[in-house]
């Protein structure tokens, strides 16, 4: 079992873990624009730093000294590093936005007006307009297919090169503007006005231009602002105490102290963390319509997962051959293979796979004169007629009826086997054979069952460790549902589920204060998707489903829910870890700065200079430099997110407190000492 639930993203490159100089260079113009105080106002911590930097600039101009200018430069760098962090984070979405924009070329649409079509610009289309699109043409806007079926190349948005089928009616009727019809002809009713299409929303999302602060981000900002005010008070009131003590401090030193104490590390990286979190989702081909939903994903208590396609492979497969009394298993295998030759369904193919694996029966080519009897809904059987031999395979009742019609009869043991398979949640297929127009006899039963995807149990165990309950939703009868649920290791099943049942289940969980996540694609999923706290719509799904959910998975892979939950948690953990680190840093900074400030007036405070920093000025400068550089040092972590291993809350807390709490206390002692050595060596102070 892998230690993490995160799958490698399939279509987009993994997020780079280091920053290239090129990346920083491209981000620089954005970073400089970010220095505008009106934009910094959103981040009170960094705003205070900028005001401090402006103040020291004036002081340095009035009374120039190497120390004053060094401090001033590093304070400006502190602000610049913060805006650079945000700019780098934003830059990562820009490339993707550019490729999306390319799909938005102005195209010509053939709009249906009365009995004719007229050519109009795609930008002039309104909601409700009907257009015709044929092979080779670009679909002019978002809409639903109302007539026809076509294969469509959606690689422009999903990155997946294999074409997908879009057809009128059902759950695969939604088409996206900018995608290309590869074959056939469809008639599309436009559902989104130009400028508000899916691609437009995607561009806005990946560029972060619509980014709003999420609830938790706002709450954290309140706490950070308060800490800033408290330290502002502590530093402003320090001067009267210092004056009283006969150690009046240069204003530049007070500004340096203030900047070192306020939580600049997290203040600088907070928005980058948020943007990077969204970006991680985008890289996994998930589009979150709001950051709020990403945060909610971290809090999810209950996951509703559809059985088919999510937990099981989606098709029933032959799992066993059970011969009737007195029948040679090899004969049953042979008959099962023969009867499935004409069965093109996945179930039929799985029978061929089974007999090949179990009995070494290869595909046969000696079927001269064979007449294949394909499966028909009326007979509910398939089979083959050979000279002198007929083989049939199908639903128990249908095959037994056929046996009886030939004068044969089925034994009681067959009925018992059929019942047992049904009871275990499987599907029995009875195989019978008729030789030379005599009475047919039952050879045995094929056990078809839902095959649970590999590794699902481990995933659910991991989720349970995280405190998340999984509920499997299926249309199967309760018996079947329970059997599969047990095998897959889910916590609960919702059997014979109608869309109303799903909605009711979500409401019930929410009444109890739990947060629910689900994935869905059909129109009838829309109410449940809208009700769920995290609703992930499949991109292959209907427009209604996509609009109801708050995320869209471009890969249409319902297991993605698990990754979404992890990304949500990772986002919160990264914020918490860097805040803790930031506050823990203050301990060491006090040891660097306070003795430096007051050692002249009170030589005994020199004892507190545990780092043995060279001089008061080098000590203060080193603390300021460390404070600035730590932002750059932690930027990759902010962009990548703190490593997350699914485990209990206590274990996570212990680990993160150790790394970021204790680490946050120790790291600056080392860092400041190192910088002091450098500063001294370079003679900067």
């Amino acid at each position, binding site marked *: 079992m892998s230690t993490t639930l995160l799958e490698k993203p399939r279509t987009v490159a993994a997020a780079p873990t280091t920053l290239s100089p090129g990346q920083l260079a491209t981000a620089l113009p954005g970073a400089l624009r970010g220095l505008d105080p009106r934009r910094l106002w959103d981040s009170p911590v960094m705003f205070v730093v900028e005001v401090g930097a402006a103040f020291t600039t004036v002081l340095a101009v009035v009374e120039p000294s190497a120390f004053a200018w060094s401090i001033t430069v590093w304070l400006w760098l502190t602000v610049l590093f913060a805006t650079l962090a945000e700019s780098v984070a934003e830059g990562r979405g820009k490339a993707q936005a550019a490729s999306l924009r390319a799909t938005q070329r102005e195209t010509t649409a053939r709009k249906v007006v009365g009995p004719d079509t007229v050519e109009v610009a795609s930008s002039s289309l309104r909601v409700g307009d009907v257009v015709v699109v044929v092979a080779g043409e670009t679909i002019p806007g978002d809409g639903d297919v109302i007539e026809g079926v076509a294969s469509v190349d959606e690689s422009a948005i999903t990155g997946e090169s294999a074409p997908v089928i879009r057809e009128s009616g059902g759950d695969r009727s939604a088409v996206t503007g900018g995608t290309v019809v590869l074959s056939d002809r469809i008639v599309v009713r436009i559902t989104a006005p130009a400028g508000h299409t899916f691609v437009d929303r995607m561009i806005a999302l990946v560029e972060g231009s619509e980014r709003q602060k999420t609830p938790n981000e706002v709450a954290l900002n309140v706490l950070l602002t308060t800490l800033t005010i*408290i330290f502002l008070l*502590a530093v402003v*009131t320090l001067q009267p105490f210092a004056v009283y003590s006969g150690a009046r401090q240069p204003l530049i030193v007070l500004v340096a102290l203030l900047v070192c104490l306020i939580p600049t590390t997290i203040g600088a990286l907070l928005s980058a963390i948020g943007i990077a979190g969204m970006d991680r989702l985008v890289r996994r081909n998930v589009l979150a319509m709001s950051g709020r939903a990403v945060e909610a994903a971290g809090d999810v208590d209950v996951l509703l997962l559809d059985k088919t396609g999510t937990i099981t492979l989606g098709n029933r497969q032959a799992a066993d051959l059970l011969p009737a009394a007195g029948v040679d298993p090899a004969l049953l295998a042979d008959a099962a293979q023969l009867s499935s030759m004409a069965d093109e369904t996945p179930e039929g193919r799985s029978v061929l796979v089974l007999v090949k694996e179990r009995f070494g029966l290869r595909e046969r080519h000696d079927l001269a004169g064979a007449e294949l009897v394909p499966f028909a809904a009326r007979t509910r059987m398939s089979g083959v007629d050979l000279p002198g031999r007929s083989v049939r395979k199908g639903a128990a009742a249908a095959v037994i009826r056929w046996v009886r019609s030939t004068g044969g009869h089925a034994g009681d043991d067959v009925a018992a086997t059929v019942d047992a398979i049904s009871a275990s949640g499987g599907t029995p297929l009875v195989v019978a054979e008729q030789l030379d127009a005599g009475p047919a006899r039952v050879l045995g039963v094929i056990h078809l069952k839902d095959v649970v995807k590999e590794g699902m149990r481990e995933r659910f165990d991991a989720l349970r460790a995280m405190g998340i309950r999984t509920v499997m939703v299926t249309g199967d009868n309760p018996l079947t549902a329970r059997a599969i649920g047990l095998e897959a290791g889910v916590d609960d099943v919702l059997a014979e589920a109608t869309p109303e049942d799903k909605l009711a289940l979500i409401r019930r969980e929410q009444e109890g204060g*739990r947060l629910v996540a689900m994935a869905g694609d059909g129109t009838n999923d829309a109410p449940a998707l809208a009700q769920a706290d995290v609703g992930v719509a499949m991109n292959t799904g209907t427009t209604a489903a996509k609009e109801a959910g708050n995320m869209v998975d471009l890969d249409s892979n319902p297991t993605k829910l698990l990754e979404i939950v992890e990304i949500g948690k990772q986002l919160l953990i990264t914020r918490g*870890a860097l805040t803790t680190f930031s506050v823990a840093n203050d301990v060491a900074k*006090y040891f660097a700065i306070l003795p430096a400030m007051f050692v002249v007036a009170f030589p*005994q405070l020199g004892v507190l200079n545990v780092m043995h920093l060279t001089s008061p000025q080098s000590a203060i400068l080193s603390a300021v430099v460390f404070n600035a550089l730590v932002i750059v040092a932690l930027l990759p972590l902010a962009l990548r997110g703190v490593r997350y291993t699914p485990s209990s809350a*206590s274990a996570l*807390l212990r680990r993160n407190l150790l790394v970021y709490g204790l680490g946050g206390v120790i790291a600056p002692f080392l860092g400041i000492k190192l910088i002091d050595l450098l500063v001294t060596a370079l003679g900067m102070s």
Partner: protein
Amino acid sequence: MSATWTAIGQIGIVVLVLAVVHRPLGDHMFRVLTSPRHLAVERVGYRVMRVDPDAEQRWSTYLLSVLGFSLASVLVLFGLGRLQDRLPLDIGMAPLDPAGAWNTAVSFVTNTNWQWYSGEAAAGHLFQMAGLAVQNFVSAAVGIAVVAALARGFARHGTDSRVGNFWADLVRVTVRVLLPLAFVAALVLVAGGVIQNLSAHAEIGTLAGGTQSVLGGPVASQEAIKELGTNGGGFFNANSAHPFENPTPWTNALEVVLLLLIPFSLPRTFGRMVGDRRQGWAILAAMSTLWVAAVGLLTWAELAGPGLVPAAAGGAMEGKEVRFGEAASALFAASTTMTSTGAVNSMHDSLTAPGGGVALVGMLLGEVSPGGVGSGLYGMVVLIIVAVFLAGLMVGRTPEYLGKKIGRQEITLVALYVLTMPAVVLIGSAIAISVPAGLAGQLQGGPHGLSEIVYAFASAGNNNGSAFGGLTTGTPFYNTLLGLAMLVGRFVPIALVLALAGRLASQRKVPEGAGTLPTHTPLFVGLLVTVTLVVVGLTFVPVLSLGPVVESLS
């Protein structure tokens, strides 16, 4: 060596008594605060006050009741102080000046009991009994009422922010908790030698042949509630160092137990009110850790007696009573500063430099270990929310405590609470140290003088009331400014806590799961202690480094 064992023995006795008593007392307070029944005497009270004790109040109404009651109390005390010479039992005391009366009125209503005056030289018996003693009871009851409202905020969900009835809480806590406890405690104190009479000054011939004027008074009854309610306002200026208030080492130990009793029992009450006793244990553990650390450090400081003078004198006995010695004085000093009591049995100005520093830090942590009656617990819960906010993020969930989400509004209230005390202390001290009127009161200059001023504002802003001594604060400047500090330091936090209680009560409950951060584990207790020390402590490091730290390193 024997001094060390005496110290450990005394601490051991106090801890043992508290360990035995805190559970039944905590359970009793739980029943008092949750029972639907009213006593006959309480009904009479409600009828006189014309309130319906069963009417649940929203947090805003609850807060208005607290403020209205406190305002009325301030006015009554102010009147009694200004007019005491025209009232009975004045024993010849002059009326207090306006600034002094304001300071004293605010001081007792805010459970601070800062005394700028000498009890025996300024306060008549009526003022002491009908004014100050009454406030000793009700100001303590207000603290418990507020924390009860907060506990209800956690315990209730989806209500329209109703958090109980202030009048019922006030009356019940007074009648069923404070009065009986104070009565028993007073009897024990009298048995231990504390005086209880209504006599005025008596002339006594001394051994040296001179005469001395000795004041009697209803001391034991005052003394009991002074400690129980973490008030600290002494009958005499010397407070618990005075032989009439605290005659023997045994009464001394008893007084230490009394002042720790309710603050250490309330976590149990809280745990039961929110339906999870483990949460109460966790809070108790965090409070105890800080208290034990402070007592240990202070005892070490006084016994080791670092510094020039104690070394020369062979012990840090300056300003201490010989009948108590260093250890009992240290135990009392640590307990009184960490409970926001402010009673003293020694001169804190004369504590060794590190010892005085510990006493000062005990207050500057925001009086949460265990803190004042009620106020210590709500202060600790606020810090828990800060800890939960950081820790909750680190486990990958939106932070929650006791099933309530800590969102923007909750953290805003908590942040303002955390901001209030440092603002009061820092701004107050900075003003005092910058103006001649503030510096005029100093006994000494230098780092010790700075400690004196910061101590005064720490004491007022945290509603402790203990004085470092040395600083003359009976001036209009200090009376006014410290009165303001006490007022803001008490009622702004109360308003924020009640608003928080209302927010929490209206929230739905989030069920606990495996992903929920457990808040009863040793790990969390450790985190809470660290947050208390780091988040609150860091604010004061610069100013402390110029006071006690410099002194200690001299």
